[in-house]
C-alpha cells in the first residue's frame, strides 16, 4: 500500500540488536584492558566495525534496501579503504 520503507522490523529484533551493541561495548572495554599491544588496536577496530554493521543493517534498514544502495555504500567504503591504504603505503615507503 505505501511506497515507504515497507519492511517493518519488530520491537524484539530492535531490542536484541541494542543488547548486542551494549555487550560488544562491554567486550571492547574489557579487551582494551588486556594489554594485547598491536592486536588490541586491531580488535577494537574490528569490534567497532561489527557494531557499525549492526547499526547500518538493522537500525538504518540497509538489510532491506535495494542492492543498488548497498553497492553505493560498498563503493564509499572501498574509496575510504583505498585512500587509507595508499596513504599508509606512502608513509611506509618514505619514512
Amino acid at each position: 500500500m505505501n511506497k515507504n520503507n515497507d519492511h517493518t522490523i519488530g520491537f524484539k529484533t530492535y531490542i536484541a540488536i541494542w543488547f548486542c551493541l551494549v555487550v560488544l561495548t562491554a567486550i571492547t572495554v574489557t579487551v582494551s584492558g588486556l594489554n594485547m599491544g598491536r592486536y588490541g588496536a586491531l580488535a577494537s577496530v574490528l569490534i567497532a566495525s561489527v557494531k557499525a554493521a549492526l547499526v547500518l543493517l538493522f537500525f538504518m534498514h540497509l538489510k532491506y534496501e535495494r542492492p543498488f544502495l548497498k553497492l553505493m555504500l560498498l563503493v564509499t567504503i572501498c574509496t575510504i579503504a583505498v585512500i587509507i591504504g595508499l596513504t599508509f603505503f606512502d608513509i611506509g615507503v618514505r619514512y
Partner: protein
Amino acid sequence: MSNMSITEHRPDYEGSRLGMWIFLFTEMLLFAGLFLLYSVFRTRYSPEFHTSSVELSRTAGTVNTIILLTSSLTMALSISVIKSGRRGMSLLFQSLTVSLGILFLVNKYFEWGAKLWHGIYPNSPELLQRGKGKTMFYGLYYLMTGLHGLHVLAGVILLTIMFIMTVNNRINREQYVRLENSGLYWHLVDVVWVYLFPVFYLIN
C-alpha cells in the same frame, strides 16, 4: 488508487531516502579523512597517544557510548510505531531520543570542561610543554569529538523539528519519510561515535 491521473502528485519516498544516503556518504568521507589523519599521527607518536588516552575518562566515554546506542534504539522504535499509526508512542520515543542526545552533550560538556580546567586545550601553554605527540592527540581529540558533538547538536535540533511536525500531524502513518531520514542521520552520528570511542578512549 486505481484511477490514477498523470497529474497526481506522488511523493518519491525511495528517491528521498536515496538522497539522504548520498549525503551520509559525504559525511562518512568527511570523518574518514579525520580518522586517516588520526591514524597517521598515531603511528608516528604511538607512546604519547597511549599516555594521553589514559588521561581521558573511560567511564565518561563508556556512558556516552551507551547513551548514544540507546538513543539509536529509541529512534528506530519511534519510526517503527509511527508506521502502525501509534503517534503518542512515537512522540514518546522521539522525545526520549532528543533527551538522550542532550544528555550526551551535557556529559561531553563536563568532560571537556574538566580538561579545559586543567589547561589542556589546543595551543595552550600547558599542552605545548608536553611535546608534539600530546599536542597532536589533544588537537585531534578536540577536533573530532567537537565535530561529532556539532553533529549531535544538529541531530537534536532536527529531531526537535520532527517532533513538532509529528505533533502537527505533518508526520503520520502515511508520511514519515522525513522522520526516517532524520533517523538515518541520527544513526550515522552513532556509527561515527562507535569508532571515536575506542580510538580515543581505549588505546593501550
